[in-house]
């Protein structure tokens, strides 16, 4: 037996760890496009950007530990460039690796700002190299403009303010984060930026970049105005990394090209499973909705489950995860569980003592967002997982509001 895992990040690592933990003794090949062994992306937009932050990015395990302790053959710095699901072979680095079970964990790639090629000072934030570059610019005291008020962009803006640097966010929508948390909670998040002195330009479109000698000097807006900048970070979303699956027969989502799988993470192609940011999985907890989540805990859970199911498809169980993510800005903690796709959103705790918004679909609670209420969020998660009736969630919120 050979298990091949393509994508050497969180989901891929959790897949190989789960296989070994379950007692699988066979061959494991872990193929990764990056030069590094798997490392954690979480701190890249948080602690790592601090002036006193860690100077280097430590992998979860060294390459030697992957080899010797986990018994994994790492193939790093080499992207898989093809998949033959009939021969059961992955093409990488001019050769092929045969598999019995395959886990696709290639995640997603940050979308680049059009027209930014060859201009220094313009970055995305996805990899260790990106984080090193952004940090170096902050160390030099850069005036920062973030494009896109999503979570990663917001964390970068917060990191710049924490150093006392000027920071500006430009967002095309009129409410930030509307797709991930809805309008009302998005507005509360936006107010955190303003209170901390980050300038927030909403309903504003970027039309181009200004540069001098190949180095960025500003961001041009549709109004014609130019925001001066030495560092531009584009947080404008990601694209699933599935180019290597073209023509393989693995089902890809028509909208974004992510891998489509069922609630057990099976793709329908024998032996092939998917996990993490790359995967659209059915979620039975939310009416079987296909969800592609870009969250740490999801990548960790799906990675482990995909490997287990690949080995024992007969005992595979549907996953029904309650999505969970968090983000830290200006010393505030934003936490979200469940889904924002709701019939109604109710503010349960007003913004003074933190903030809680609850999301109702039909007669049950399907989501909760809190700001600075760390004690409650996992209780809501339990309500959501248990399909608790809406009044029960409201009663819990009322009891904790004080």
């Amino acid at each position, binding site marked *: 037996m050979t298990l091949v895992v393509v994508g050497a990040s969180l989901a891929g690592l959790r897949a190989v760890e789960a296989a070994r933990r379950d007692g699988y003794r066979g061959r494991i090949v872990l193929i990764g496009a990056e030069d590094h062994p798997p490392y954690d992306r979480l701190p890249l937009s948080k602690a790592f950007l601090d002036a006193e932050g860690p100077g280097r990015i430590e992998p979860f395990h060294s390459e030697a530990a992957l080899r010797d302790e986990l018994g994994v053959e790492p193939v790093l710095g080499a992207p898989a460039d093809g998949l033959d699901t009939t021969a059961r072979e992955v093409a990488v680095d001019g050769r092929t690796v045969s598999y019995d079970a395959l886990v696709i964990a290639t995640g997603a790639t940050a979308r680049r700002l059009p027209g930014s090629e060859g201009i220094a000072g313009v970055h995305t934030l996805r990899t260790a190299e990106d984080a090193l570059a952004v940090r170096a610019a902050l160390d030099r005291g850069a005036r920062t403009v973030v494009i896109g008020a999503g979570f990663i962009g917001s964390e970068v803006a917060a990191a710049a303010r924490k150093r006392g640097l000027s920071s500006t966010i430009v967002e095309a929508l009129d409410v930030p984060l509307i797709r991930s948390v809805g309008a009302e909670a998005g507005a509360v998040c936006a107010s955190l930026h303003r209170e901390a002195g980050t300038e927030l330009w909403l309903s504003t479109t970027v039309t181009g970049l200004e540069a001098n000698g190949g180095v960025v000097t500003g961001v041009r807006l549709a109004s014609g105005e130019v925001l001066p900048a030495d560092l531009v970070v584009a947080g404008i979303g990601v694209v699933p990394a599935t180019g290597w699956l073209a023509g393989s027969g693995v089902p890809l989502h028509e909208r974004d090209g992510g891998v489509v799988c069922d609630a057990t993470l099976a793709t329908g192609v024998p032996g092939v499973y998917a996990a993490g940011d790359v995967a659209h999985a059915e979620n039975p907890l939310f009416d079987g909705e296909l969800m592609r989540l870009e969250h740490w805990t999801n990548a960790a859970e799906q990675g*482990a489950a995909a490997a287990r199911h690949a080995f024992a498809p007969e005992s595979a169980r549907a996953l029904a995860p309650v999505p969970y993510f968090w983000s830290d800005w200006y010393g505030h903690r934003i936490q979200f569980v469940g889904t924002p796709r709701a019939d109604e959103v109710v503010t349960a705790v007003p913004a003074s003592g933190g903030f809680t918004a609850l999301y109702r679909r039909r007669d049950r609670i399907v989501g909760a967002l809190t700001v600075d209420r760390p004690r409650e969020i996992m209780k809501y998660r339990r309500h959501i997982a248990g399909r608790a009736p809406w009044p029960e969630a409201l009663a819990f919120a009322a009891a904790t509001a004080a």
Partner: protein
Amino acid sequence: MMKIEADRAKCDGLGMCEAMAPDFFEVGDDGTVVVLDERPGEEYRQDLSAAVDACPVLALKLRD
């Protein structure tokens, strides 16, 4: 008997442990974890291992 060790200095209050094993972990108002029962019975090993593994900052350990 198993012992749960939580490194409260490392803990970031993310609550994954509470999600996996609510009878043993709870995030307090200060945003760090409180271990509700440090010496759980053997029958909880699987839940507790899942909780330990779920911690993004590796703040939890199970000792025998």
